[in-house]
């Protein structure tokens, strides 16, 4: 611990209570950080690729999650170490930006740091390594632009999109049903996609699940599914061609926010109040009826009396519908969200082709399916699965696949997967490194080696001899100058990823490289770690 003394020999207090903080400095600090990051990366390494294994995570409350989605694993691991948290953030930002490749980015960052460690041992300055990595990253991304191909599809020809989604899904638990699932995802994305603006609003795709049934029963609902039932058990369960009113006011007497009291001191007042209460309810329901609504969807609760009046007026209603669902419903049906009964008019109603209440198995769970809306811009994927863990995992997998499809809609440039892009970039970086003199030369070589960690892990997880398979592919790429050769994870007998239809989006891949390099740089720049000691 560094101490400074003033001219009287008294120690300056530089850090408050510094004797109680542990501190690591200089190269030690960098190494400790690298160590931590590597540990996190190693946990994820075995989840990479189509044959990657799952992790079982038990939350503090004892709930079990089984997944091989990198971002989810890291999030639920509750990493405590600061550097470890950086890796978690890394994976999360990849998830937010791209939605796929969350495992790959962590594995890559781990590999970069691992190689940086040996460079540090050679006595290189951490920042020089970081600079070298930056240069290499630039070369690699340029190379990605060179090897990328355009990927053609249209609303009619969705086959290519389906194939991409299948690649993403093949590594997940739904691998058995990748074809139908991929089709569901692509249809969902295209339903909400704005092909002219090349944009997809993912909020419009809802993934809703219910435990039970088979995975095969998963389907795309061209409309909205809400986990609610009609407010009165005797309302009709199946409605066709209905006008929908969406309300955000409760069917209850008003509750003004200002504190107030209604004093009753005579019998007349008591009677008047009773009368007011009664008319209030009839009035509310009558207004809904008068507007021509045939279905009322409300964000709040109903009083028993209001509930019966609605039922009596033959006006089916749903209560306690969440805010997000309300918005989706409004978008789909074209209804305006009405905050007060007074403002409810005929032109603010929406339309739905069919509203149905579905029951499941032997339990009393029910859900509402709203289909046939004029604005087909909101869809729901309704997932079924054998148990809660499978269901959650299917949801996550579908989310990944949807993200991939969305990225392709946004930018249809692709590179080939199975480690092909990484190997090609590694070769390009190696070549560029030879032209660079100075310390950066080594850093770039290290970057190239780190890139190969991805295909190595892929081969290892697929049960192939890692080094043999990698070097064989590398050699062929060099000889044939064919950047589409990768690791044959699925044992199909060909290394050409074009035949296997394994590809990823260029944006995703670039993002991986950028993010991993950035995190590396950040970690390498840390030379002092101060933290409060464990025992207080």
């Amino acid at each position, binding site marked *: 611990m560094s101490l400074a003394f003033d001219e009287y020999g008294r120690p300056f207090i530089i850090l408050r209570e510094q004797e109680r903080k542990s501190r690591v400095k200089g190269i030690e600090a960098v190494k400790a950080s690298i160590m931590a990051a590597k*540990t996190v990366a190693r946990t994820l390494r075995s989840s990479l690729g189509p044959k990657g294994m799952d992790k079982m995570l038990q939350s503090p409350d004892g709930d079990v999650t089984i997944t091989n989605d990198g971002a989810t694993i890291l999030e639920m691991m509750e990493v405590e170490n600061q550097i470890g948290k950086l890796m978690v953030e890394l994976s999360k930002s990849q998830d937010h930006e791209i939605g796929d490749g969350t495992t790959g980015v962590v594995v890559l960052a781990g590999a970069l740091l691992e190689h940086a460690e040996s460079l540090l041992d050679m006595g290189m300055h951490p920042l020089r390594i970081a600079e070298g990595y930056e240069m290499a990253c630039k070369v690699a991304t340029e190379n990605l632009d060179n090897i990328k191909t355009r990927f053609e599809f249209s609303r009619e020809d969705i086959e290519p999109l389906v194939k991409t989604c299948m690649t993403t899904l093949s590594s997940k638990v739904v691998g058995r049903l990748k074809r139908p699932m991929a089709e569901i995802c692509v249809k969902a994305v295209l339903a909400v996609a704005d092909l002219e603006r090349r944009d997809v609003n993912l909020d419009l795709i809802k993934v809703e699940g219910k435990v039970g049934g088979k995975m095969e029963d998963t389907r795309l609902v061209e409309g909205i599914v809400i986990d609610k039932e009609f407010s009165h058990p005797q309302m009709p369960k199946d409605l066709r061609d209905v006008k929908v009113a969406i309300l955000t006011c409760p069917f209850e007497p008003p509750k003004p926010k200002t504190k107030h009291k209604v004093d009753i001191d005579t019998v007349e007042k008591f009677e008047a109040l009773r009368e007011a209460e009664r008319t209030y309810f009839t009035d509310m329901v009558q207004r809904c009826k008068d507007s021509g609504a045939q279905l009322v969807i409300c964000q709040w609760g109903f009083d028993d009396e209001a509930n019966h009046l609605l039922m009596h007026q033959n006006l089916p209603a749903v209560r306690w519908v969440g805010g997000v669902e309300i918005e989706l419903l409004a978008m789909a049906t074209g209804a305006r969200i009405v905050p007060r009964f007074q403002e409810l008019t005929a032109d603010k109603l929406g339309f739905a082709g069919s509203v149905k209440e579905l029951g499941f198995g032997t339990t009393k769970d029910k859900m509402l399916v709203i289909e046939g809306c004029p604005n087909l811009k909101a869809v729901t994927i309704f997932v079924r699965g054998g148990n809660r863990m499978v269901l959650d995992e299917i949801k996550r997998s579908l989310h990944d696949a949807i993200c991939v499809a969305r990225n392709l809609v946004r930018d249809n440039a692709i590179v080939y997967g199975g480690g092909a892009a990484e190997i090609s970039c590694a070769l390009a970086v190696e070549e560029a490194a030879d032209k660079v003199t100075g310390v950066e030369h080594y850093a770039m070589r290290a970057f190239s080696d780190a890139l190969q960690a991805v295909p190595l892990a892929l081969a290892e997880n697929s049960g192939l001899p890692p080094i043999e398979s990698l070097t064989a592919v590398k050699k062929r790429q060099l000889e044939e100058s064919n950047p589409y050769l990768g690791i044959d994870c699925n044992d199909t007998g060909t290394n050409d990823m074009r035949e296997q239809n394994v590809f990823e989006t260029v944006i995703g891949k670039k993002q991986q490289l950028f993010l991993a390099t950035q995190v590396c740089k950040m970690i390498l720049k840390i030379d002092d770690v101060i933290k409060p000691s464990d025992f207080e």
Partner: protein
Amino acid sequence: MALSQQSGILQQGASEERGENARMASFVGAVAVADLVKSTLGPKGMDKILQSMGRGQEVTITNDGATILKSIYVDNPAAKVLVDISKVQDDEVGDGTTSVVVFAGELLREAELLVNQKVHPMTIIAGYREACDCARSVLESISFNNQSDPALFRADLLNIAKTTLSSKILTVDKEHFANLAVDAILRLKGNGNLEAIHIIKKTGGTLQESFLDEGFILDKKIGVGQPKRIEDARILVANTPMDTDKIKIYGARVRVDSMAKVADIEAAEKEKMREKVRKIIDHGINCFINRQLIYNLPEEMFADAGVMAIEHADFDGIERLALVLGGEIVSTFDNPDTVKLGHCKLIEEIMIGEDRLIHFSGVALGEACTIVLRGASTHILDEAERSLHDALCVLKETVADARVVFGGGWPEIRMAKAVEELASRTPGKKALAMEAFARALRALPATICDNAGLDSAEIVANLKAAHGAEADSRMGVDVVRGEAGDMAVLGIYESFRVRQQVLLSGTEAAEIILRVDDIIKCAPRKRG
């Protein structure tokens, strides 16, 4: 594990297990759970006593897999997966909750052997998947459907009910209860709404005295001084406060300055209630059923008007009543002309054992019925209800999907045979996994034999031989005589849906556990 703990990546108290260790942990946990319920499988399965940790330490005696697993607290994450599938099986088809866990456990046991032989878990999964597909198509092809012929279909249903009940406490009276369950289900006329079947448990008497009633029985009392028997009843089903009518307008309160006014308000309040009762009576009814309490004042008024008033029918009861009687649940009483009243031919008070119940007969909805269970103790009744519920669920599924297979391990033997044939044609290590799958399938009939104290190896081998010799043999385990027997003759039938669900969810659960190579347990949340 040691590594990550040293470097302090995870929180204190968290643990991580990797690779072989993780796999071992999940195998051990899952197999332990499977072994726990294994002994309850089959007609000669044993029961478990479950004592709750809560106050009173209530005791449940059951051999229903889902009930057992629901009640135990497991810490092992893999075991939780199995508990979960059993629960889902219960929710989806209602039966086969033990089979699915035992099957998944056997698959994992076999997988453990393969992993020890250095077969990669992914290869095992690939093999299991193919085997599962094959088994499923076999199961589909061997199922049969008698829906077109009502008499045969009824016989099928009876046999299924008997098979389901034979493993439960009701096995002695299975003939009786199978008839009860089938009658109840057939009354539903295929709409599968189990709500309409009401089960009432009353201690006393014997199980044999349980009966099916064509009307509806409500476990409530009729108000004092009101008619106990009404013919051609017009019934109003309501959900409204009949004690004091609260003022719902927010912030209202009574402020008076003299005692006289208090009396006035009170009188007004009473008048309000009187008016309400009058309005209700104006519906032209002679029976009023409310979800909430009815206080003495209105009760007396109803008595004066000769209306039968039944209070405090709980929420479920009121919904069911409304459904059965064909009325609507009413909360306001201003327009008597348009309210749909419920009807029934006769309401009367009946006695079951010591208790008085209200019996509605000749109800509008012909589908409804009530099963009254009698038995010596609450434990027996609870278990009887669970068993009957299982049977009803299975029957309901069968009515929806009329395909039927034989029981007694017959489908498993058939599937195992087909999977083994597939394995013999498959090159590569996958074939090992398929063989393992076939063995796991055969473990089900073997367990049935073991639980009955029979020589499982001998019987299963005989079955295998019988099926090998004859392509469409109908041999299965005959537990009573302890040998292989013709399932068609013995009348042991099972629902196709149940068997299919067992096959699929069992495989799915095994797969998901096999895929795990790392278990991370977060530090338990600190309490209070």
